[in-house]
């Protein structure tokens, strides 16, 4: 059964036709024996719309250079949990195995960074699944350098992962809105220049890998809605999910997006078949079989980790252990208190955009208020899109803003945002919470923001959106770096920078 197959064929042609007048059709390699590198280049090139072959490489290159500069400008180990993550990696690099929270202490070299450690002298991050750390340890073993050099190299890995997030965000934009340049450019621009995401992609932290895997999973899910969930696609999503869970257990909160995507594809497939051919049993078998691969394999893969946590800490995720970090548990609150507290939401907005490190470098209110105003305008615009879309389903003469495929994927993006906001609240019930826990849905925040900004303009003027967005975010990043970030660390009269002893 090929769920959604009929609509996909129509969609693919549709996209090509739309592009035909303005853009070149995607190219495919014409010389099959031209070598592996040529094939990869051709494959990459086929993923990029012809009109995007100048600005996209320019944006990606800019992202890399900007991030490398950030790697240098963010003081060593001053990122959130960076000390713990770094020495968790070094623990593997030294040949030591998984540690037990409460037993594993940071080495004496970490002493100068005590203010940046959640539970000094203990390394709290050994509570995390080890995929990111074990993978980095392989690189660490190859490095002869000192602590500072090793930290910079690990940070550069985060830059590469962040680059992957920007790239996959573009692929999502291209997949959903192939003919709309404002979204195709706006979405990756938002992700590449979102200040807190940029910070995340310049420090040693497993969150950036989680963001990449979640974005990849969502992209493949959207593909499944368009083309149907083949076994291969299900397996790919399952492998990504397993990797995500082995990186950070909270990755599990994005899994419902993949599951709902599968359900949508199954329902689409059922409804698109001819009435006489409709077979509920077949549809349910499709759903059950693929659902088993999609959710069963990742759960099976993470079971050993859950079993270990259950054995050591008494709960499968180990999250209860987080409450034992004394100062952090004091920040825990109830869902009700958080949801109805304007101060809580102001804090989360501050975290989402600025508040670098352990909130050590906040923005001034004058800067954040301008950003929140712009984001509020985008939010109102997106609500208008939703309202118009909902109305068009009932009023025949109104043209919907989104086609069926787009509406489904935008709906899933809203679900991703909602789940990640729940993640922020959930952590808040255990300990000190931060908006970065919502970042696996960064592409979705970007998509909804760009759609919302575009909603304020007539179609012929929407080309302005990416230009304004890029200009605004460039100015914001520059302003924040010059006014707050660099002066926090260094100045002629000193600063908070602490450099490791060589």
């Amino acid at each position, binding site marked *: 059964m090929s769920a959604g197959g009929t*609509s996909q064929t129509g969609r693919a042609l*549709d996209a090509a036709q739309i592009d035909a007048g303005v853009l070149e059709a995607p190219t495919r390699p014409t010389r099959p024996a031209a070598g592996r590198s040529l094939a990869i280049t051709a494959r990459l090139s086929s993923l990029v719309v012809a009109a995007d072959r*100048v600005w996209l490489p320019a944006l990606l290159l*800019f992202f890399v250079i900007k991030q490398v500069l950030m790697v240098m400008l963010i003081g060593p180990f001053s990122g959130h949990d960076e000390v713990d993550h770094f020495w968790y990696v070094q623990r593997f690099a030294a040949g030591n195995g998984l540690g037990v929270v409460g037993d594993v202490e940071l080495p004496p070299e970490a002493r100068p960074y005590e203010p940046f450690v959640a539970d000094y002298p203990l390394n709290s991050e050994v509570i995390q699944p080890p995929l990111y750390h074990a993978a980095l340890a392989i690189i660490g073993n190859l490095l002869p350098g000192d602590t500072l050099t090793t930290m910079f190299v690990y940070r550069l890995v985060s830059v590469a992962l962040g680059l992957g997030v920007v790239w996959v965000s573009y692929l999502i934009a291209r997949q959903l*809105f192939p003919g709309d340049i404002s979204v195709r450019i706006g979405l990756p621009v938002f992700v590449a220049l979102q200040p807190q995401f940029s910070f995340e992609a310049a420090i040693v932290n497993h969150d950036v890998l989680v963001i990449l895997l979640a974005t990849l999973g969502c992209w493949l899910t959207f593909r499944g809605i368009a083309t149907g969930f083949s076994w291969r696609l299900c397996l790919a999503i399952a492998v990504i999910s397993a990797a995500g869970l082995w990186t950070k257990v909270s990755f599990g909160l994005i899994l419902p997006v993949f599951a709902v995507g599968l359900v949508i594809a199954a329902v689409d497939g059922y409804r698109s078949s001819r009435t006489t051919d409709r077979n509920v049993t077949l549809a349910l078998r499709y759903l059950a079989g693929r659902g088993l691969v999609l959710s069963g394999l990742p759960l099976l893969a993470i079971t050993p980790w859950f079993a270990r946590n259950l054995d050591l800490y008494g709960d499968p995720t180990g999250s209860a252990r987080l409450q034992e970090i004394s100062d952090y548990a004091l920040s825990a609150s109830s869902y009700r208190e958080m949801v109805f507290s304007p101060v809580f939401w102001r804090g989360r907005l501050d975290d989402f955009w600025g508040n670098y490190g352990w909130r050590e470098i906040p923005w001034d209110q004058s800067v954040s208020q301008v950003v929140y105003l712009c984001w509020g305008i985008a939010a109102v615009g997106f609500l208008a899109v939703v309202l118009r879309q909902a109305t068009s389903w009932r009023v025949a003469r109104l043209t919907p803003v989104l086609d069926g495929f787009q509406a489904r994927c935008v709906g899933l993006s809203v679900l991703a945002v909602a789940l990640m906001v729940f993640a922020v609240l959930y952590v808040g019930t255990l300990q000190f919470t931060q908006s970065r826990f919502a970042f696996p849905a960064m592409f979705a925040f970007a998509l909804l923001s760009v759609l919302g900004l575009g909603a304020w303009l007539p179609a012929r003027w929407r080309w302005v959106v990416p230009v304004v967005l890029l200009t605004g975010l460039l100015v914001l990043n520059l302003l924040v770096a010059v006014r707050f970030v660099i002066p926090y660390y260094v100045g*002629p*009269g000193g600063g908070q920078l602490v450099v490791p002893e060589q």
Partner: protein
Amino acid sequence: MPNAATRTVQAGLSGIILSAIVLVVLVLVPVSVRHSAPFGSVQTVDFSRSIAVMGGEITPNYPGFDRVDLDLRAYGDGAPDDRYDFVLRLQTVEEPQVIRRVAFSVAADRIPATRSAFAPISTAVEFDPIPDSAGQTYYVSIERGARNADDIVTLWGIRSYSTVSVPDVLLAAMDGYRLGFSPGTDRKVILVAAFLTILAGSVSAAAVAGATWPARSQPVGGRDRPASRP
């Protein structure tokens, strides 16, 4: 529509011109930098007595110290005429001597004891720049005016600022950061990376502008297409 090579050249040239303009602007336009302090401000809590006091020590890390943002909180039923008068005193710590004294007045509703989540939290007080402020420690204190000498007002935090040029900040970065190379190489690497970032950002902006330019006259697809219902 020009081909990719032409567009790349156009974006590159436009980016170079744009980055030159950006560099000129950055050199000419001064910025107000916030001095280094954890969480951005100096808290004025006297932990031994568990109270907020009316002053605090700050150590600007840039020259040209010329502004403080004060987090003032007024308690009680309000001041006469609904305004509070204050005098800000700035004195050096090593040799106690008042070097700046600024009288200012704040509307009572600007400094309520409790505020809504998004209300402005600071009162800016500007004074003549102190050229050699980098690395010096100052005591900033607030005194209530005669009209409201008996009212209860506290100072929760102080943020301090200097107005400097962007090259000053870049020079501080080049001198301050250590990347693990020799100091001379560290400086060069930071300078080159900063320049390349501006150049790449400008090229990127030019490329985006170039890509969207023809879109104005083209029908925009995607959201403007009729919906294809499943």
